[in-house]
């Protein structure tokens, strides 16, 4: 089951600063919309479609604060499948990769884009880690990797508000509770603060906190 897009076209248009940006968006979306109906071409190793270049340049034309929304909308308009998403992720800057991650729940029905989530979770860039723990991950990531993702958020300072379906997935997870308790013990032993979020997710597991 796919999720609705985080931003609708009307919402994105309302975000844009001026008519020039809105005109740019209209053109870019029209360009992207041609992709699903265009006859298939052998993917050239280096050349990018114009809509893919627009995907890269979105922040400069629509404002950097709106780039996530604009890029996600472009991906949907192009009906980008796992192959295109993988290429855009691999060729993308951190901001472009984040947009691909945002679009996963809308565009990919099934676990075959998990390699992108796993790549982002291997990074140490908090912008990517935060985008990698969204609804797509909540549905598809296996329990072991998901627990490590939660721990990585605590470790790198990503708020657990970013983790989709946190309560549902944490409930009854005794192994997560053990990992959290151990991590808290390690922090305490080193004389360091235990992150507030840790206690919150430990409570969500419903497991007894062991001498925190």
């Amino acid at each position, binding site marked *: 089951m796919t999720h609705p897009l985080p931003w609708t076209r009307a919402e994105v248009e309302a975000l844009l600063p001026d008519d020039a940006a809105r005109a740019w968006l209209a053109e870019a979306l029209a360009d992207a919309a041609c992709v699903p109906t265009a006859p298939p071409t052998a993917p050239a190793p280096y050349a990018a479609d114009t809509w893919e270049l627009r995907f890269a*340049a979105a922040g*400069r034309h629509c404002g950097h604060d709106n780039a996530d929304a604009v890029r996600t909308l472009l991906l949907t308009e192009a009906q980008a499948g796992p192959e295109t998403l993988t290429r855009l992720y691999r060729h993308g800057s*951190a901001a472009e990769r984040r947009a691909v991650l945002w679009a996963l729940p809308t565009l990919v029905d099934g676990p075959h884009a998990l390699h992108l989530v796993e790549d982002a979770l291997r990074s140490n860039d908090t912008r990517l880690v935060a985008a990698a723990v969204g609804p797509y991950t909540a549905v598809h990531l296996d329990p072991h990797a998901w627990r490590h993702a939660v721990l990585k958020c605590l470790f790198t300072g990503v708020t657990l508000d970013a983790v989709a379906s946190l309560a549902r997935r944490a409930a009854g997870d005794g192994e997560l509770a053990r990992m959290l308790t151990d991590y808290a013990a390690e922090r305490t032993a080193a004389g360091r603060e235990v992150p507030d979020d840790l206690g919150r997710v430990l409570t969500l597991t419903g497991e007894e906190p062991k001498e925190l």
Partner: protein
Amino acid sequence: MRIFDPHIHMTSRTTDDYEAMYAAGVRAVVEPSFWLGQPRTDPASFYDYFDALLGWEPFRAAQYGIAHHCTLALNPKEANDPRCRPVLDALPRYLAKDCVVAVGEIGYDSMTPAEDTAVAAQLQLAAAHGLPALVHTPHRDKLAGLHRTLDVVRESSLPVERVLLDHLNETTVEHAKDSGCWLGFSVYPDTKMDEDRMVTILKTYGTEKILVNSAADWGKSDPLKTRKVADAMLAAGFGEDDVDQVLWRNPAAFYGLSGRLRLDVPKPEGLHEGNSVLRGGE
């Protein structure tokens, strides 16, 4: 005092450097892609490097309150290795990225035909992508290299006002200034300029269109050279406004030609509190 280091290889530097640079007034850097000391043998090594300059390094710099942009190119030394040449074909998709503010550093190393081809092709790429170009002058046979560089620039469709000639010195400054290009000086121990010679050049040629950088990298170098030049300028009687022009406004104007420069990096909270992001790797 605000400082913009227009040429520094932060990939080779530590977080201590970032901290010291911030304390010295550095708020913006441009990192040109270049040779890593160890020759690469595969285009994919370049792509990982470009990705680091577009992703990880700006993220790292932002943790220390410094805006990070980059210039991308196939450098002259490795342009001589046919195994690396496919990088030229892949550059267009990288030059579309937000943080890329010029093509560079390009130029000559040993002045070979392969270098001729790479310089000319990349000047065209700059023109086609609305980007200026950072062109270094060679370490060996510098003056002849400068002449050849200027010939290729004039043959290209990139106007001289969009070219920064770097690693200049006393023997090349006059000719470079006559060309109408922007003038870059690297203050780098032993092999390039030093602070006092830099001040003499500024006294002789003025502060217009002159940029000063540390070119700090994996060699014996100093990421605080920009600040040291600023101090030497003040000690020699230059005013605060002259310092600001050379060490901030000039680099901001040159790289601003790209239309992609963003200098508004907010100072991160907890900069010195050892938070987990700053702690880095697991």
